[in-house]
């Protein structure tokens, strides 16, 4: 497995896309921290970057990579290797290189400007989002044979998590305005890894006071041990479950 993993990582690094991803993240994060007069504002802009760009790059890059290495995968399948090993190596390779890219590109500037728990939390959130969206992309790629269709699905999934889901929440808050829906909204939005990450980081910033009663409910939840355990579990499930299903499909897939 180590050999395949090494090969996958080397292949990805040679690809240069990951290198430009690092450069992009690094320049933007540094720029944002230097541009904003107020450093906590810089953190907020970085948060947008983490919630928007990281999932997008993770999901699209991984999907494309899987399709592009289909010949390589076929080659590996002809060797006496377990399918599980091959698939997991792909997953590890992709997620390790994307996580490293994120940590270098965004993590280091954050640690320079915000070497406290909030900064570390943001890095953790970014790492989780990378993992989750790599895992989701594998699921999308394994279920569709057609490359164009697969990429389309990946983009749609990203759109769903980044935008459509919030639209649904907004719709729900209007529809159920007569009910005490704070807790319900909280439960629903913790189901979306992007929303959960956004709120978890926001509540650590001064801005959390702007979130009023809803924010207070969330703060109470995330302030408790159960709350932290539940939200961490949700994030972990978000990459384990798609990974598991993609693996199951890959094992039985007729290539």
């Amino acid at each position: 497995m180590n050999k395949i993993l090494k090969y996958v990582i080397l292949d990805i690094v040679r690809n240069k896309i990951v290198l430009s991803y690092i450069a992009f993240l690094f320049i933007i994060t540094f720029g944002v921290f230097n541009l904003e007069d107020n450093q906590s504002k810089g953190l907020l802009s970085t948060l947008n970057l983490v919630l928007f760009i990281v999932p997008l790059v993770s999901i699209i890059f991984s999907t494309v990579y899987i399709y592009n290495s289909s010949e390589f995968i076929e080659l590996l399948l002809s060797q006496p290797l377990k399918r599980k090993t091959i698939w997991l190596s792909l997953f590890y390779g992709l997620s390790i290189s994307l996580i490293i890219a994120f940590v270098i590109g965004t993590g280091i500037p954050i640690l320079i400007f915000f070497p406290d728990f909030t900064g570390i939390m943001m890095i953790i959130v970014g790492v989780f989002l990378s993992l989750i969206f790599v895992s989701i992309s594998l699921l999308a790629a394994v279920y569709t044979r057609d490359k164009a269709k697969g990429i389309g699905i990946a983009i749609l999934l990203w759109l769903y998590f980044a935008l459509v889901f919030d639209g649904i929440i907004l719709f729900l808050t209007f529809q159920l305005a007569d009910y005490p829906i704070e807790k319900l909204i909280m439960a629903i939005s913790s189901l979306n890894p992007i929303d959960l990450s956004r709120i978890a980081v926001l509540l650590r910033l001064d801005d959390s006071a702007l979130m009023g009663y809803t924010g207070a409910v969330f703060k109470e939840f995330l302030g408790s041990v159960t709350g932290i355990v539940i939200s961490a579990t949700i994030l972990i499930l978000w990459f384990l479950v798609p990974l598991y299903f993609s693996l199951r499909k890959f094992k039985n897939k007729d290539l």
Partner: protein
Amino acid sequence: MKPIIIRLIFFSILFSKSFTVFSKTIYAGKNQKIKSINQAISIATAYDSIIITEGKYFEKNIIINKPLVLIGKNFPLLDGEKKYEIVSIKSNEVIFTGFKLQNSGKATMTDPAAIKVYNSKKVIISGNIILNSYFGIYIQYGIDCKIKDNKIIAHGTDEQQIGNAIHCWKSDSLIISGNYTKGHRDGIYFEFVTNSVIWRNISKKNVRYGLHFMFSHNDSYISNVFENNGAGVAVMFTNNVKMYNNFFIYNWGDAAYGILLKEISDSYIVGNHFSSNTVGIYLEGVSRSVIEKNIFEKNGWALKIQASCMEANINFNNFIGNTFDVGTNGTLVMNNFNSNYWDKYEGYDLNRNGIGDVPYRPISLFSMIIEKNQPALILFRSIMVTLLDKSEKLIPSLTPENLKDEKPLTRKINL
């Protein structure tokens, strides 16, 4: 004209002389013949002065029931042992100055205070230090009283019941100036107090409000500092309030306001500085009022205007670095914005007259949504909201058509 003035001066000298002639000065204290303050008061006649020397005094309740001057020398300490109201002033023309008071009693029915004034005129309370008391200075039915340069400090928390630092109720023509209050429920509390001035006070870290104003008409508050109070400042059910040159700083929390205005009319908010508050000014039921030449800086919302407001004129203010400039729950806008400086303004000024050529819309779609629908706040700073706001800025359709500044300034106003 001149002879009259000279005559006046002459008479006043004569008059004041007559006081020194007829009134005496009594010394009381540990090293004096008269050991207790109560004793000194009982032997004093009207308009005498009592000078109390350094020391600790446990006198239960001191009642001042005749016009006297009480002066503490080197801050003699009066202790209420957490059981008694320390000083009760029940006479006109009392001057009480230079004491240190601590540990007044607690009782929710009678509201004991360190110094309480009952139905009196022309009382002056100045230069005292009041520590750990339930209420600090309490005035009921007072007229023409002055509360000056006192320092009132307690260590209240949310859970524990605590009174206000300066509490004025059903009074008229008060002057509250130069006081420092900290850690009480409300720093300065006014209910049914008219024609009064609150000037140059500092109110910090109080559990609820720095200043709390209800049913108090024709008052002014000028050059005060309200900093880091649990809920900021509340001014409610009042006409003709003038608020000039005050500082509202870091009143930050889920429900904190620089000023909470409710049912206010004919009032002026001019030259104030609102910095780092969750909401700079919250307006509900405000009518015919002027908000001018203020600085709104780094607030969550600079202004929150409820639909019940009419004829609020918001002109010549600086809006800098606020997360939201204006929030409102209404669509029909009967308030005027004119000639303000908005740092978020993205228009242009072709003829270089300092006035932007396109109007500025200070309200974002999201800030409207959350006024109507609080739980939607969960979407704060999400990508969808950013996109919604951007598209609304380009093609305004849902935000109130006439809520705009027609003449936004392109340069910061020097305030």
